[in-house]
């Protein structure tokens, strides 16, 4: 008999080696997440996928599924926590959606829509951050970086390069690139690298493509992120 966990009372099978997130996604159960993409080593940093496992809070993307686990996800308490986390992500950076070309295709925004987040709740931080537009085809807008490290992992694990890294701690944490000048143009990044296209927000953008799809006709304008994620992200060991 195969091993199972329950998520919000629903029995879900899993294979050894799968995390709770893997098992959930394979069973078409969406757990909100931003720093996780199934093809990369889990990072466990955004904490949006926090679930209650046998009474304790864990990140679903890093926590191994084990037989008989009782997992709670869509409880009022956890949904409220996720909304607060998303609000903190918004106030910590400079996320001005009306002036961002990623709007409508942005996963940070889409998770906020999914959680029906209507306000920021917290005081705004308005950090002083730069834009690196040095590269001919790719730009980094540090104002929008949420430190998910997806670009770091994609560069290492898919592109076979080492273009991005996170540096500093706490409020001083920031994305850096692998060049003595600190500029993207002096790295070996290529516009076709997966690292360039994996950014869940508008922090890494391909130049001159931002408005090819009009606002109002973008991914999350009519589809919720749970549907999009379940249809496009394929966990380990397949569906």
């Amino acid at each position: 008999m195969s091993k199972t966990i329950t998520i919000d009372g629903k029995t879900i099978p899993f294979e050894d080696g799968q995390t709770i997130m893997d098992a959930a996604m394979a069973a078409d159960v969406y757990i909100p997440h931003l720093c996780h993409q199934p093809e990369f080593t889990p990072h466990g940093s955004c904490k949006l996928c926090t679930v209650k496992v046998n009474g304790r809070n864990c990140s679903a993307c890093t926590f191994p599924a084990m037989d008989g686990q009782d997992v709670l996800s869509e409880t009022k308490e956890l949904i409220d926590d996720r909304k607060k986390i998303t609000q903190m992500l918004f106030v910590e950076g400079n996320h001005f959606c009306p002036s961002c070309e990623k709007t409508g295709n942005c996963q940070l925004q889409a998770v906020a829509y999914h959680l029906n987040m209507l306000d920021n709740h917290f005081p705004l931080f308005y950090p002083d951050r730069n834009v690196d537009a040095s590269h001919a085809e790719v730009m980094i807008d540090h104002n929008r970086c949420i430190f998910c490290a997806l670009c770091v992992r994609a560069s290492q694990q898919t592109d076979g390069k080492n273009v991005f890294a996170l540096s500093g701690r706490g409020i001083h944490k920031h994305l850096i690139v692998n060049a003595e000048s600190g500029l993207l143009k002096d790295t070996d990044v290529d516009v076709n690298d997966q690292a360039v296209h994996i950014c869940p927000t508008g922090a890494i953008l391909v130049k001159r493509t931002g408005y090819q799809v009009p606002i109002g006709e973008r991914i999350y304008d009519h589809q919720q992120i749970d549907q999009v994620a379940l249809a496009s992200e394929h966990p380990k060991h397949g569906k």
Partner: protein
Amino acid sequence: MANKIRVATTSLAGCFGCHMSFLDIDERMLQLVEVVEFDRSPLTDIEHCTHCDIGLIEGGVCNSENVHVLREFRNNCKILVAVGACAINGGLPAMRNHIPLEECLNEAYLDGIGVENPQIPSDIELPLLLDQVRPIHEVVKIDYFLPGCPPSADVFWKFLTDLIEGREPSLPYELVHYD
């Protein structure tokens, strides 16, 4: 009808785009004014709030006058609503927040391209600028938030009809946009 619901509106550090979007409810405005009476608002030109049921605030606070107006609204409105991106997070005006105020003024009034007779306005009638543009929930308690740049006419309509008909206001997925 006696005892109409009293609504006040204002634009602080906003562009009046939210007010224009409100007017996009078009002929539904006729239904609205059956039950609603406008108090202080750019639509009525009334200059100060009296006691109101609902206050709609567009824009964040960028100067001392914005703060006074916001407090007047809070003191007079039972329900105060942050309308649009700027009221909620400062919006595009807040993109000046990481530039020192003096540099902003110099660029606008002294060194900018095409400036004639350069001088920084300092008339006593002019409200003083704040060093940063701030969202309104940092200044007064806000009861409801309508995101969007601007919120669509349907957002205004859904919110106001919910309130007027005694329901807890809620916005379905299709009406929640930050852009």
